[in-house]
């Protein structure tokens, strides 16, 4: 048996499992998206009607908007906060297991439990209001999860809390490989800290930054557990993102075809993101 054949055979089980578990269901999903059940229980083939319906459905755009706000808020905040912390921690000599545990914990615990935690913290009679009131910052308890815009803010902040550790770890790893001689040379040439940051740190950090941004965007866009754990899409539908809407449509209203169509659109949007990121972030020419 040749090397090629052996390699193929040895890889086959894993590849087959992945293909079976992913490609087949995706095909099935696209197939389902072509059907509608206008009368309950009776399925009719409707071609691309579901997709056309989605595009004309104001709810689709509303929830897409929510998803966009959520994703944009989460990714930008997580990135900025993570970057600032990573830069600050870059020069620490002592490795502390205790501190590392503490910092990773928000990322390691189940997101839905983190969300439930935040629900406890943010209830009207909860500790956040308690602290804010004793600091005299507010006079009346704030209904964090009952006011629409506040609820979105809270949900975003919970996601940020959960995912900043991941960002810190990756950015720190990226920072560590930047040779310190570059900074020494720059300061000898009279470059200030800001210049050193823009011309040395940022460009050399680009691979790490792009990975962080791609992964965070993908995962924020599809988030279900965190939002479901805090608000279940509420109050009303103000924090309902696409994934929650698809869930409700498919498993509470049994509009499987429509849910499938939106699911396919979510997949296409994700692929679009990744393509855009890859083009502009990773393969853009580096100025050295």
């Amino acid at each position, binding site marked *: 048996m040749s*090397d090629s054949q052996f*390699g193929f*055979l*040895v*890889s086959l*089980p*894993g*590849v087959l*499992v*992945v293909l079976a*578990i*992913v490609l*087949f269901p995706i095909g*099935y*999903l696209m197939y*389902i998206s072509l059907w509608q059940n206008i009368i309950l229980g009776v399925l009719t083939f409707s071609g691309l009607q579901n997709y056309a319906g989605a595009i004309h459905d104001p709810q689709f755009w509303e929830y897409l908007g929510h998803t966009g706000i959520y994703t944009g808020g989460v990714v930008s905040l997580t990135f900025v906060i993570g970057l*600032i*912390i990573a830069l*600050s*921690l870059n*020069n*620490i000599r002592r490795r502390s*297991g205790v*501190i*590392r*545990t*503490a*910092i*990773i*914990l*928000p990322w390691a*615990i*189940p*997101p*839905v*439990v983190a969300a*439930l*935690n*935040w629900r*406890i*913290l943010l*209830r009207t009679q909860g*500790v956040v*209001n*308690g602290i804010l009131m004793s600091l005299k910052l507010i006079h009346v*308890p704030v209904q964090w999860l009952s006011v629409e815009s506040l609820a979105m803010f809270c949900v975003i902040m919970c996601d940020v809390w959960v995912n900043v550790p991941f960002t810190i770890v990756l950015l720190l*790893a990226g920072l560590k490989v930047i040779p310190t001689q570059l900074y020494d040379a720059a300061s000898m040439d009279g470059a200030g800290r800001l210049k050193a940051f823009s011309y040395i740190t940022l460009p050399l950090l680009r*691979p790490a930054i792009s990975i962080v941004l791609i*992964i965070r965007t*993908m995962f924020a866009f*599809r988030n*279900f*557990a965190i939002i*479901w754990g805090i608000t279940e899409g509420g109050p009303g539908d103000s924090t309902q993102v696409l*994934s929650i809407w698809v*869930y409700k449509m498919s498993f509470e209203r049994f509009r499987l075809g429509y849910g499938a169509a939106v*699911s396919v659109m979510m*997949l296409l949007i994700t*692929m679009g993101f990744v393509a855009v990121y890859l083009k502009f972030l*990773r393969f853009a020419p580096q100025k050295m």
Partner: protein
Amino acid sequence: MGRKKILSWRVLVMCVLLVLVGISLFPIYWMFITSFKTNADVAVFPPDLTVKNPTVSSYVQVLNRAPVLTYLRNSTAVCGIAVGICLVLGSLTGYGFSRFRFRGSNLLLLLVIGTRMVPPISLTVPFYLMAKALGILNTWSVLIMCYVFLNLPFAIWIMTKFFDSVPTELYDAALVDGCSRIGWFSRIGLPLALPGLGAVAIISLLWSWSEFLYAFIYTLTPAAQTITVGVFDFIADAFIAYNWLAAGGVFAVLPVIIFVMIFQRFIVGGLVTGSVKG
């Protein structure tokens, strides 16, 4: 100028670290605190920052009202089996992709990694119909299938990179000595790739334990429900017993905390390895 600058810089870093650790731990601390409060204490506003009359009554209530141990058993079993499958298949496929670059292996690797782009919610309906047809709804099997979907691509990717880092000389020399290709894998390759297997195992276990969406949809009775769904079950529509909710949360989180304390160095290492060369 140098010495003063270093001192104020150090103080700033210490402050950042303190704030970071504080913010990271406060919600978790709060969950523990709340779980030990009495029903009366939970209703007090503003809430006490410490527990004045600690009680384990919430834990008793939770254990009486919910099959927590069953949930934990289910979580452990499902995660263990799924990750085990991923380790076996992932290392075999990684070996094949890495050592024998057969025609199409690069494309297949890209395809496998590309499956990460599929939002899990998108596959909930197909998986549901498949599971129903196979009769495995509300069993461990459906969750194992889902968790293998979530983790196998990552496993294949990491193991391919790890086998890539094994010098070809080690392989060639062994074959010259008469070692078979599959023998090399079991006797030399796998032991060398142990760090990679460890990283995959740890990260996959964390992800699977924390998984919510699939467990929520596909398991309806405690027979197969995992701890994340079990905790969520404590939310009643009208009255939420926050101390009970917190106690349930502790059951879900305590294994994770212990796990992280033991493996924190490897978790960080695994994350870095998995992402440094995207």
